[in-house]
């Protein structure tokens, strides 16, 4: 049987200050690590959940984003007429020909301005996004200069609340409703009538066509048809895939920066744990000698000290995760470099992140504790007993 866990736990508790300081250092690293993962997950969730797997986004080939895409009216009509496209209850096709423009809006309580994405859409636009609900006011009327704003935009930008007015495209636009898109990317957009928006900005072309298929399994068939049609220079993507690709650059940036920070910080925490564990071994040389004399093997000593280091890591891991969990109350907004518009997203904590962070904390503990534990296991019994 191994050296009892109570010995390990109480040895840690006996050195409260050292244990707390070392675990505290590890907690900070776990906090950074978990926060980065939460940020990446928040971004992924915001953008990926923006897209519905049943919907298809058609853009100009190689455009990458709706902002860079143009689709003329003729091409849009061809796409709309494809046999795979579903019909709505009213007997018309379930499509929305959309125009995207970026405008600069001033933030409330600040002079700073940011780019906001305005989405001009057809009448089926909101029907195609079942995750979007109007939480205040009403839907804009087609053919009018009415607009509805995403919750995040309404809260943070001057003139974007219900009953307020925004001026862009040389027109006054009345905000008549607020949409809650369940923390997806649509919360950072303003929606209005596509034709009105195209007139205001003197744009003759759409940016994208969003549509629902009769059967999601028919996507490949639809994609092949669109991409091989010589009249079309377009490409089709499932909406969820399209938005996942939108988040890739920003998510990769957050991931790499975060991982570099975590690795650098963890080196510091590992050294801290190593110093603590070396001191622990030195202070308890006679205890180690006694345990060995009583018949505990080298491997028992090694595992006892490794467990002790892992306990340090686990304490730091739990503390770091508790700290990181508070980040869920914060929302941050940043420029999405692929759409050049501002995107608000939160920190999302899930079981995978908890497990990864905890494993990271344990790995730090083991990395910091291995050499001291090996030293403890290799101590000469007679020399260790003389340390008494």
């Amino acid at each position, binding site marked *: 049987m191994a050296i*009892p866990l109570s010995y390990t736990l109480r040895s840690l508790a*006996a050195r409260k200050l050292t244990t707390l300081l070392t675990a505290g250092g590890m907690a900070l690293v776990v906090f950074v690590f978990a926060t980065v993962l939460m940020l990446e997950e928040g971004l992924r969730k915001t953008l990926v959940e923006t897209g519905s797997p049943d919907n298809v986004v058609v853009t100009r080939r190689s455009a990458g984003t709706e902002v860079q895409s143009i689709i003329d009216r003729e091409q849009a009509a061809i796409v709309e007429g494809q046999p795979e496209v579903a019909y709505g209850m009213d007997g018309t096709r379930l499509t929305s020909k959309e125009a995207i423009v970026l405008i600069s809006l001033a933030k409330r309580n600040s002079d700073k301005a940011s780019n906001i994405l305005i989405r001009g859409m057809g009448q089926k636009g909101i029907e195609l996004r079942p995750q979007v609900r109007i939480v205040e006011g009403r839907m804009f009327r087609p053919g009018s200069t009415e607009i509805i704003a995403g919750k995040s935009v309404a809260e943070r930008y001057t003139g974007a609340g219900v009953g307020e007015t925004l001026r862009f495209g040389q027109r006054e636009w009345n905000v008549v409703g607020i949409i809650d898109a369940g923390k997806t990317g649509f919360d950072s957009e303003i929606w209005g009538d596509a034709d009105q928006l195209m007139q205001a900005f003197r744009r003759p072309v759409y940016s994208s066509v969003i549509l629902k298929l009769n059967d999601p399994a028919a996507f490949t068939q639809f994609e092949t048809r669109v991409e091989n049609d010589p009249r079309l220079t377009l490409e089709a993507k499932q909406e969820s895939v399209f938005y996942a690709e939108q988040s890739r650059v920003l998510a990769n940036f957050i991931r790499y920066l975060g991982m570099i920070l975590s690795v650098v910080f963890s080196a510091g925490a590992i050294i801290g744990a190593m110093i603590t564990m070396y001191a622990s071994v030195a202070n308890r040389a006679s205890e180690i000698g006694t345990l060995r004399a009583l018949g505990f093997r080298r491997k028992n000593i090694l595992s006892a000290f490794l467990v002790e280091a892992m306990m340090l890591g686990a304490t730091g891991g739990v503390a770091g995760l508790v700290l990181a969990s508070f980040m869920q109350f914060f929302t941050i907004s940043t420029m999405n470099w692929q759409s050049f518009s501002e995107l608000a997203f939160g920190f999302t904590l899930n079981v995978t992140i908890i497990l990864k962070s905890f494993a990271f904390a344990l790995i730090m503990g083991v990395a910091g504790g291995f050499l001291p534990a090996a030293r403890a296991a290799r101590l000469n019994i007679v020399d260790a007993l003389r340390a008494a």
Partner: protein
Amino acid sequence: MENLSEPIVQIRHLTKSYRRGEQLVPVLTNISFDIISSEFIALMGPSGSGKSTLLNLIAGIDKPDSGSLKVNGTDIATLSEADLADWRAANVGFIFQFYNLMPVLTAFENVELPLLLTRLSRSQRRERVELALSMVGLTDRMEHYPSELSGGQQQRVAIARAFITDPVILVADEPTGDLDRASADEILSMLERLNSEMGKTIIMVTHDPHAAKSAHSIRHLEKGELDVRS
């Protein structure tokens, strides 16, 4: 059960030296003697005479350079590190000058430690530990930590820990060296009882002639060799 006619410890031509820098310092030279079962012997000699080294070799926590060292029929000089650890757990009880109790464990848990290396169940361990602690008169101190006990009480806990596994030999290195006279006498009488009533073979290193009187025989070491007076 060991055979009483056979010596429990057989030492033949035992040699041990330590390296100090470039120099090889001999500590024990060609030591040969036997200890018979249920004997209580004291090893005496000036500092540096090699008595603690000899005790460490008999207890299997150090290895000789040459010679043979049989304890209860096993030549422990030939055992591997891991086998030697198992052998110690089964055959040797240790009593140290400074008690060497785990400060974060209670008296009960300290005495229980060697039993964790056996196949005994939790309840069997509890039964044995309670009996051992009652034998050393510490039933009412079972849940106390070493820091809450006097030196004499700590050494009694250490004695309980030493005999809890019913070992073949008990080795005691200056067991009274850190105690006042009254506590020392208490410990010595406890060792005498372990020897006379339980038949434990005890090998004790001491500087104290008063302590040595508790032993049946005394072996003197002088500069790594057994003194002819022994």
